[in-house]
């Protein structure tokens, strides 16, 4: 092996090294105690087939749409009042007044409400597109059947979000759409009438229907969706991403010998690690 000669690092290089150590130190600290950095790297920088397609970003897009709904929803909940009572000054229902207040009075309220209202449709549309991609790519086949089932559950939950959220403005459209929607459930054989009465919180739609839909809309169903998305992602990471149907790599074939990671472009390229980062892979307590 040839002897390597090292020139003395320049001042700029030394400064850069110092900065990198400064950045890496807290990351190393965290990694050594939790393994979180490694976990995030494992999640984000995993190998995917070389010929993946832009269509395969639809799932991430749907996830992003859900996050937008979650964040805007949390903020809307700070101003929205789920009350069917009548405001004595205006004669309008309090819930409806609070929506008007958000839209017309509060700074940027129109924007956040608009994001939530239109983002709801975006979320559903993206879920359907994602489902179509999975179907057309055959990505639901063995061993990913379970992930298809979880995805369908997320879709159903997303539609329930749409149904429960539609009532919250408490205007005529919301009211009658909910009347029809609940009564549709009520026509289901055997348990339908019971389901309808549970959703209504009684025999007739009332203020309790509004509060119950609000709770379902912002606590129960989002919680379920978050849990299901976690499972969904776990299976995606565990099983990997499918190749497109036109892929030249036949399924079940032995993978070709891998090129060294540094030659491959894109997300699989490892993060450049400065000298101080060697502890990232050290055993706990085995810091050099």
């Amino acid at each position, binding site marked *: 092996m040839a002897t390597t000669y090292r020139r003395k690092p320049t001042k700029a290089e030394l400064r850069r090294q110092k900065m990198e150590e400064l950045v890496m130190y807290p990351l190393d600290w965290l990694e050594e105690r939790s393994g979180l950095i490694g976990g995030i790297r494992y999640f984000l920088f995993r190998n995917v087939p070389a010929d993946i397609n832009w269509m395969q970003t639809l799932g991430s897009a749907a996830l992003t749409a859900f996050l937008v709904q979650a964040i805007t929803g949390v903020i809307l909940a700070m101003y929205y009042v789920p009350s*069917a009572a*009548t405001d004595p000054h205006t004669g309008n229902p309090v819930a409806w007044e609070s929506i008007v207040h958000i839209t017309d009075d509060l700074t940027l309220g129109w924007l956040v409400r608009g994001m939530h209202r239109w983002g709801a449709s975006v979320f559903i549309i993206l879920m359907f597109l994602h489902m179509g991609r999975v179907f057309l790519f055959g990505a639901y086949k063995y061993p990913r059947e379970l992930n298809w089932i979880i995805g369908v559950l997320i879709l159903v939950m997303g539609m329930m979000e749409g149904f429960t959220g539609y009532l919250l403005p408490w205007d005529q459209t919301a009211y009658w759409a909910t009347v029809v929607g609940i009564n549709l459930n009520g026509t289901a054989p055997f348990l339908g009438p019971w389901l*309808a009465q549970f959703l*209504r*919180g*009684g*025999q007739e739609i*009332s203020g309790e229907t509004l509060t119950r839909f609000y709770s379902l809309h912002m606590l129960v169903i989002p919680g379920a969706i978050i849990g299901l998305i976690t499972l969904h992602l776990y299976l995606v990471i565990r099983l990997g991403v499918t190749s497109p149907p036109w892929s030249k790599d036949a399924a079940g074939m032995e993978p070709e010998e891998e090129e060294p990671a540094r030659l491959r472009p894109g997300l699989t390229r490892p993060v450049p690690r400065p000298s101080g980062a060697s502890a990232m892979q050290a055993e706990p307590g085995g810091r050099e």
Partner: protein
Amino acid sequence: MEPEQPTPDTERDSLHTEAHLPPPTLWPIGFAIGVVLILVGLVINPLLISTIGAAIAIVFAILWARDATAELRGEPIVVEPERREMTEAGEGMTAPPADQQGVALVQVPETAVTRSVFLEGATLGLGAAIGGLITLPVAGFMVLPSFLGQEQHKVDLGPIEKFPLGKWFIATFIVDPTQGEVSRRTAFIRNNGNTANPQDPSQQVPSFTIISNRCAHLGCPVQANGPIGQKYTGTPSFKEHTLTGPAEFKSVTPAGYGCPCHGGQYDPEGNRIAGPPVRALDRYAFEINHGRLILLSTYSVSHVEGTGAQAKIYKYKSVGPGEHVDGPEQVFYPINPPHH
């Protein structure tokens, strides 16, 4: 250099030459009962029951403490030697092997519940019990109020003389004043005049046709197909502030009723004539109290023969929109939720 202090470890070692657990004792159970009595007494009778509880707790605490410290005080500990039934040699079993001290190792029968299995089961069982104790009332609170304690609201619509004979009115009224506007309902009302009491034909009783505007398809509000107001009907509309809240009566001459949502059509008696509804419009039961018309709860109707006071109404228990009350489809709705 100072003399070496005994570390906690060596100190313990000097007291306990062998590692072992304290002998089993039942005193903590008595102590726990005492504590429970104190707490119960605080609710029921602090002077008597709490005192008894405190006494029990103290006595058992002392006994427990004596037991736990017996070793430290140098008292001999009497421990029952553990005995297990020896399985019969033979039947394919070898004699129990002996270890170096010559103590026979006992063959534990396979059916025996080991300590770890017992603890595992106990943890799961206790967890399930605690989870159930928390979940059951919460789930009950979530589900049951929708079905229990549903109140019947009587609605006062004012004196019956206000309703001219044979004229239709669109009545809107508040069913539950505590709920407010959300409980506003609409009904089509016609005074049919007096008719013979079905129970006692010698008596005359007032007869009203009161049709709910809730569509029998999916519950949208059906509208009267016909002119509304005095200008067209010749009958004045009126408003009334009754004992249960405001009520409004618009005169109307309905040729029937139509639903704006999915096009269901009904005749003036509420019979379905077209569209998706599965039965006739619901009707309100009513009573006349001190000359005032009082609405009771609704009932469902499959169809009506005839008209007015002579109409034959095929009555059923009130069910939700879209539910069949007659015909073969009724088997799909065998049990309905409780209804007032």
